[in-house]
């Protein structure tokens, strides 16, 4: 049966994500302007990308005058998880959904929207997905605006403190996953050791930071993919 108020339900389901996004993107806005970006640039990035980790990685690359290749590769590696999430989401979307509707829904497949969408028992209608994407999108956009504006007028000691907010959030995302699995912990450890090599060793440290993140992460994930491959029947868990 087709849900009458699919859009409304989507809006409601998206509200908690919206609130969370407002605070995360506030920190992104502060981070962007403290790296030298303008308010409008920070907001444009949030409107067109709607992704936390990728945007965070892009700011230093853009501000340091990095190459377009470095920027594209950083987004490719950091956001490659969306390939998997979208593949999974595609199985849940209503078969009546048109290509145009799929093109629109694709834009909003973030980690959190994906998680909430998949928690539904029914096939997902386009109207529901629009609602579920709209509220977090607004939270993300206006949070960035508020953070970018505040970052320009807040005292420096506050901006300095807010600088760690986004890293705190990333820690809160990663650590519970590391805690659950030894191979995840090993993966994180290898990535961090490689990342530190790129940061501190002579010669290696001349490589732009974006590449250091990409290379470290790809090597760590590839090593673990060989050493501790996922069980094939655990496909559903693998996308968490």
């Amino acid at each position: 049966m087709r849900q009458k108020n699919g859009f409304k339900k989507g809006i409601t389901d998206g509200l908690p994500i919206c609130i969370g996004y407002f605070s995360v993107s506030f920190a992104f806005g502060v981070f962007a302007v403290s790296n030298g970006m303008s308010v409008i640039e920070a907001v444009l990035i949030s409107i067109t990308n709607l992704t936390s980790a990728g945007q965070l990685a892009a700011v230093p690359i853009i501000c340091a005058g990095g190459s377009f290749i470095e920027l594209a590769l950083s987004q490719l590696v950091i956001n490659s998880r969306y390939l998997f999430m979208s593949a999974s989401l595609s199985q849940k979307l209503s078969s009546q959904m048109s290509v145009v509707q799929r093109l629109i829904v694709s834009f909003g497949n973030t980690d959190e929207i994906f998680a909430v969408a998949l928690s539904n028992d029914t096939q997902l209608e386009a109207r529901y997905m629009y609602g579920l994407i709209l509220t977090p999108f607004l939270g993300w956009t206006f949070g960035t605006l508020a953070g970018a504006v505040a970052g320009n007028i807040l005292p420096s000691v506050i901006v300095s403190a807010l600088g760690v907010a986004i890293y705190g959030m990333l820690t809160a995302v990663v650590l519970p996953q590391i805690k659950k699995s030894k191979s995840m912990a090993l993966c994180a450890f290898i990535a961090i050791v490689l990342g530190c090599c790129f940061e501190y060793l002579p010669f290696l440290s001349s490589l732009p930071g974006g590449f250091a993140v990409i290379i470290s992460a790809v090597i760590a994930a590839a090593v673990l993919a060989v050493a501790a491959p996922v069980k094939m029947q655990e496909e559903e868990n693998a996308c968490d």
Partner: protein
Amino acid sequence: MISMRFLICLAVMASVTYLLRMLPIVVLRQKIKNRFLLSFLHYIPVAVLSVMVVPAVFYASDSIVSAAAGFAVALVLSFFEKSLIQVACAACAAVFVVEIIMKYL
């Protein structure tokens, strides 16, 4: 004023991110079968996020000492699986307190 370079950067990052989300939804109709690829995609988020945090977090505030204090607080609260907002706010508060203390030492 927005530079041409920024607009190209914006187009590059937005299109890469969008293509990654869009292609499987529009093109791919079957589940991925390759075990290495599945495993790689399973590990890549944690690998990326970890190396993005360390060592960069230590340079996120005005001093390495206060940043380390903030990160330590974030690690402890994350270990006890507090919410993203709680962890972030506590980390900021720790940095703030340490920097105020350092000013008067």
